[in-house]
């Protein structure tokens, strides 16, 4: 009897769990798709600051980029005078905008700026607003020679306050080397935090890293997704790498895979001998046709 009770109990438990799971699934399926709007500020070294809008659709528990979503961007206030522009998200659900010159006065007016993104209502989603507050800041990258030839990078984070700048402590900074497709940390740590003087110190530990023909590397520092400063980066070219031979693959020596001017001599001699021989014969035969023609013109009809 006891066993039967246990069995019934287990069955009832299983049934209850199935019902709960089914209900949860049905609830998830029943939920309408949601729009997730993200706004990011980028201030990369030597380039114009820009805004990035990312639109993502959440449906059936999956996140998919939302393309062709129109979004209005404003600076400080969502009035026409402060309109940065209208952007439309691409295949990856992203759209980009730089600040127009007409907003230069508004940009210069304050150290803290509000960026506003308002998505245009569509048949699937209503209008959505996203606001980020950014404090103007900059990164300063410097180098210092240490003992025993050690090379050190000093990265200082500064907040801009009017015409002056104040060093900021406890900001996480990534310091690395800009490679073709990645940002390679210069040491064992991927990121560093500024100290009480607003400076992060990192030792360069990648001595044999291939650089350009002169051994130059592009080193950089980044603040990523910071609540106050957004995304800031700075780059500096330094001769800390290994000089890389431009002819790494032997393109500059005579080979089958080299450029046309560097074809193997043997191949050139054989190919051009054959070409000249055959075309010499063709030219000779054309000359013979002219001889036949000349003979025909002088021969009595």
């Amino acid at each position, binding site marked *: 009897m006891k066993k039967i009770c246990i069995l019934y109990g287990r069955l009832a438990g299983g049934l209850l769990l199935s019902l709960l799971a089914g209900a949860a699934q049905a609830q998830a399926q029943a939920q309408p798709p949601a729009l997730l709007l993200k706004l990011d500020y980028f201030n990369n070294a030597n380039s114009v600051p820009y805004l990035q809008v990312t639109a993502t659709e959440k449906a059936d528990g999956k996140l998919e980029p939302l393309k062709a979503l129109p979004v209005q961007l404003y600076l400080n206030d969502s009035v026409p005078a402060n309109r940065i522009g209208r952007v439309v998200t691409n295949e990856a659900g992203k759209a980009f905008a730089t600040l127009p010159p007409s907003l230069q006065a508004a940009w210069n007016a304050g150290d803290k700026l509000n960026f506003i993104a308002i998505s245009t209502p569509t048949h699937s989603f209503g209008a959505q607003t996203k606001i980020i507050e950014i404090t103007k800041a900059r990164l300063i990258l410097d180098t210092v020679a240490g003992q025993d030839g050690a090379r050190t990078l000093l990265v200082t984070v500064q907040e801009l306050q009017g015409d002056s700048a104040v060093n900021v402590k406890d900001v996480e900074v990534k310091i690395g080397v800009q490679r073709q497709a990645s940002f390679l940390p210069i040491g064992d740590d991927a990121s560093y935090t500024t100290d009480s003087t607003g400076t992060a110190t990192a030792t360069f530990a990648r001595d044999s890293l291939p650089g350009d023909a002169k051994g130059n590397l592009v080193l950089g520092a980044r603040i990523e997704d910071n609540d106050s400063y957004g995304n800031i980066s700075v780059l500096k070219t330094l001769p800390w790498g290994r000089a890389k031979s431009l002819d790494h693959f032997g393109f500059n020596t005579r080979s089958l895979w080299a450029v046309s001017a560097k074809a193997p001599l043997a191949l050139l001699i054989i*190919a051009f001998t054959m*070409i000249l021989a*055959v075309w010499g014969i063709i030219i000779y035969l054309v000359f*013979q046709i002219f001889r036949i023609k000349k*003979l*025909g013109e002088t021969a009595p009809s």
Partner: protein
Amino acid sequence: MEKALKIPDEQIIADLLPRKFGKTGQLWVGLLMCICLLGVYAYYRQLRYGLGVTAMRDYVSWGLYISNFVFFVAISLVGSLITAILRLANVKWSTPLTRIAEMIAIAAIMFAALIIIIDMGRPERLLNVFVHGRIQSPIIWDVVVITTYFFISFLLLYLPLLPDIKILLSSPSAATRPFQKLYRVMGSFWKGTYAQTLISDKAINILCITIIPVAFGIHTVTSWLFATTFRPGWDSTNFGAYFISGAFLAGSGAVVVAMFVVRKAYQMDDYITDDHFDKMGKIVVLLALVYLYFNISEYLLPAFKMKEDEEAHLKELFVGDWAVKFWTTILVSMILPMLLLLFKSGRKPLPMFIAGIMIVTGAWFKRYIIVVPSMLHPFLPMHDVPLSYKSYFPSWEEWAIACGSLAGGMLVITLLVRIFPIVPIHETMVEKKAN
């Protein structure tokens, strides 16, 4: 030809002068022109919308066009076989076939070059091939050798034509009257003097000797376009000989078809005789055997070893999706014609014509089978490859362009037959006198 030997010269001239197209001829030309126009329209679409209108994708980037190119190159070899090799071997019976062979060679090589330009996504960049071409690349070797072969074939058509042009000028008929100006430009200077004949004969002999290595070169280099590429089915040291033997067979098949059509259309039974068919039949059997030998060598050895990289490709051909096409092609292009032509009754004109059609059609499909299945099985397959890359069936634009090029080739041959004597008149008369 035996009967022709008994025919007076005047009759030979009257028989062999170009003739106007009849109703069938006009219909034939009209049909070919329609197909060509459709091809031109399809090419316009390709230029307008890019190579995206084709079914070619990252896997099969050499599709119908390159198969067609290899087919044209193969057909063009016939000029060197019939004209050069048989002439140098002092084979007299081939005289009536030399011009047909040369016309086919000229038309084929023209369209081989054209189809390569069509295959280029940006044809306006063709000049870059010459300006920035690398001598290390087999593609440049192919460009050089195709151009050279075209000029040699042209000279080999033109020089033996000079005595016939004199006849065309001296015996104007209603059919040749529209072309008298062309004949004058081409050969009014030919007087048939001893000195002219001596130079001409010497030049033809030099051409015959020169065209053989160049013809071998064009087929070897075309085969190397494949063999120098890392692909299953192409990674072979045998490819040059394999392609040359296939080209000889395809070209001979084309000549047999042309012989039958010309004989039928122009009632040339006295000049292109059953004996010619019989002898060509024997040559075709020999060539089919040689090509079959190379096919066995080409497929049996890799199949015996069944290397991992080749396995998928070979299994697809032998027992997979391509099996029906593969075995049918082998059967139709080699085995059936060979069996048919082994018997004397099979070497009569009509069976020969059927065998010729089988050989030419089979040769076209053979090139398709050489090109496409290999492209579908790269040594380094891509990850997450789109479905459209995994199979290939040409789009209607590709079919229209390919058919347009084939029709164009036949149109060139048809027009050459309309303008010039298809059987050399002068040589026929000389041989009659010599006998």
